[in-house]
């Protein structure tokens, strides 16, 4: 009979972690639906970026208030989770505070966890106030209704509950309070429970303990469905982010091949393709759906924290246009999820659902409003590049659909005919000299 809690605990743990692993597998599968892209260059710079931007939170601090609050939550959350290790060992082996054997250091550790827990609790409450009371505009754009809004609040409530449970658990742990070391905060909470019988306090302590660990497992499994996935993906995302100058837009290799062929006077346009080249399906230019994007762009979509720093810097959005770089990322993720579910429902094979990222999620009006100014890329604290998706979709519109706005078609015709975006003659290019 004594083993029942241990067994229950082990089962809970296995279910919780098992389900999490399943979701991570799905996540990786979905990201791999993207096109290949070579990111094997300059590994040392990549490690450095990950260290600075994700681990070091360097870009978070560009907005000092949000940045500092977040660092508290981030550091606090990671460190307090050392405590989870103890909970797991206690849970499986039926021990009680197994690490307390290490003596004074234990008190120091738990003491700092308690202080951090209070700091995290306060920070998360401030986060909530910034959203719900101060109503900071970037949290209230059009795309931030329904699930995205609830999701953001859920996370904050979750953290509030988890931190409170941690403190209550310590406060009602009579043995721990008896040690009187490390209960820096909980000693002030303990008296709240002073009137309860020893038995009730024990039940409260056990409940807090169980809800705390179950809460953490639920939280872990919530990640996949949430913008909170960033706590894991911020690391690979900053690692794989673009290292080239922001202004550099990649040259499509498939186009280069055709252009070189066209420019080569010796090439025979009707020649049969060389052996083995036939299988290479004719490349689709640009992107109309998530599978046309590369996997780093898809990883970007799952990493997005929906913080809206990008949108708050976007010149198009600031002047009332529909474009919002955050929405570009959210749409990409939503569509990718839809494609993933479609694959799950059809035994591993995607069945055409007559939908795509273009038009069904992202409208042309949004795409054509972008000035390619890179403000969104610069602003993103986790190195996401919404502009690259916009550009790939424009490429599809122009090269596959010839669907550019008329004025842009005129501009391009001019370039083709006169070598300038305006209808001037190339032979007049040096006239300014004598004017």
């Amino acid at each position, binding site marked *: 009979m004594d083993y029942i809690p241990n067994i229950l605990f082990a089962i809970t743990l296995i279910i919780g972690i098992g389900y999490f692993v399943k979701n991570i597998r799905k996540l990786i599968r979905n990201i791999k639906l993207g096109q290949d892209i070579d990111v094997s260059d300059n590994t040392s710079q990549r490690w450095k970026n990950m260290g600075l931007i994700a681990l070091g939170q360097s870009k978070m601090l560009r907005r000092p208030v949000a940045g500092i609050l977040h660092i508290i939550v981030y550091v606090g959350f990671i460190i307090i989770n050392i405590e989870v290790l103890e909970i797991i060992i206690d849970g499986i082996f039926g021990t009680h505070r197994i690490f307390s054997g290490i003596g004074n250091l234990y008190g120091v550790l738990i003491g700092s966890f308690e202080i951090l827990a209070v700091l995290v609790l306060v920070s998360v409450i401030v986060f909530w106030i910034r959203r719900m009371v101060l109503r900071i505009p970037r949290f209230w754009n059009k795309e931030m209704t329904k699930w995205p809004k609830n999701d953001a609040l859920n996370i904050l409530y979750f953290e509030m509950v988890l931190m409170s449970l941690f403190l209550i658990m310590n406060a009602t742990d009579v043995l721990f309070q008896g040690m009187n070391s490390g209960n820096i905060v909980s000693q002030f909470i303990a008296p709240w429970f002073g009137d309860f019988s020893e038995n009730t306090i024990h039940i409260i302590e056990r409940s807090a303990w169980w809800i705390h660990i179950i809460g953490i497992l639920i939280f872990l499994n919530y990640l996949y469905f949430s913008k909170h996935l960033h706590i894991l993906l911020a690391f690979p995302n900053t690692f794989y982010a673009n290292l*080239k*100058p*922001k*202004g550099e*837009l990649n*040259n*499509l290799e498939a*186009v*280069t091949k055709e*252009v*070189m062929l066209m*420019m080569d006077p010796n090439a025979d346009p009707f020649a049969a393709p060389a052996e083995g080249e036939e299988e290479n399906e004719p490349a689709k*230019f*640009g992107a109309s759906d998530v599978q046309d994007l590369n996997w780093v762009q898809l990883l970007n979509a799952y990493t997005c924290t929906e913080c809206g720093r990008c949108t708050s*810097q976007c*010149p*198009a959005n*600031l*002047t*009332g246009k529909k*474009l919002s770089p955050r929405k570009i990322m959210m749409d990409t993720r939503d569509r990718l999820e839809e494609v993933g579910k479609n694959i799950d429902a059809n035994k591993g094979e995607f069945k055409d659902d007559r939908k795509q990222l273009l038009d069904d999620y992202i409208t042309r*009006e949004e795409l*054509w*409003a*972008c*000035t*390619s*100014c*890179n*403000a969104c890329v*610069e*602003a993103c604290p986790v190195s996401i590049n919404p502009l690259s998706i916009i*550009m790939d979709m*424009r*490429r599809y*519109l*122009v*090269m596959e659909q010839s669907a*550019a706005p008329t*004025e*842009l078609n*005129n*501009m*391009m015709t001019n*370039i*083709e005919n006169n*070598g*300038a*975006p*305006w209808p*001037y003659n*190339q*032979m*007049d*290019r*040096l*006239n*300014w*000299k004598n*004017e």
Partner: protein
Amino acid sequence: MSETLKVPTMAEYMAQGKQPEVLFWVGCAGSFDDRAKKITKAFVKLLNKANIEFAVLGTEESCTGDPAKRAGNEFLFQMQAVTNIEVLNAYEVKKIVTTCPHCFNTLKNEYPSLGGNYEVVHHTQFLKSLLDDGRLTIEGGKFKGKRITFHDPCYLGRANNIYEAPRELIKKLEAELVEMKSCKQDGLCCGAGGAQMFKDAEKGDKEINVERTEQALDIKPEIIAAGCPFCNTMITDGIKIKEKEADVAVMDIAELIANAQDL
């Protein structure tokens, strides 16, 4: 005064069997747009004054393809690029200076993988290096103590991390450099990039150039300095819309420096 401009072409250099120190890539705006042509000329005056051996491609120059690429037409871009690279490589061009950040970005970042490898600098960088080497002197004179703000072109700033060269030149004019609310890496776009210059904006509640002009007017400058012919046009239009032409001038850095020495 145009007869005093010396603007040799690459073909002329070639005919003499010589190589200039640098190729001046004029760009489409610099060649055809009335406002931008003034910038081109101001820069040439500075090059002449400093006795720089430079050349232009003249009628052999063609659009870099930037607006086509940003509009999504990779084909047209690469056709333009490959054609231009053929010309540039035939002249064995090593170094290019340009007054347009869009040309600058494209030539510097997007031509190499298509076979065009050159040292490419923006004219503010080039002028700064002439100054550092003592080949050009800048006198404050006219602009001494004037309130000047610099509008960062996206394709110079964020796109290529060049923020200081233009600012150092302004400071050399002994002017009072003032910064807008959003500047440098946070600089707000003028609204022209990504091929927007060539189309009407999507529906919204304001034009981007007006927003940016208002940011500039907030800090009450006498001159808004620009480093891009497109930004220049957009902000000049913004100033007109705000009816501030009498109080605020929009000038390229090259014009400021040329003007300061009455060139």
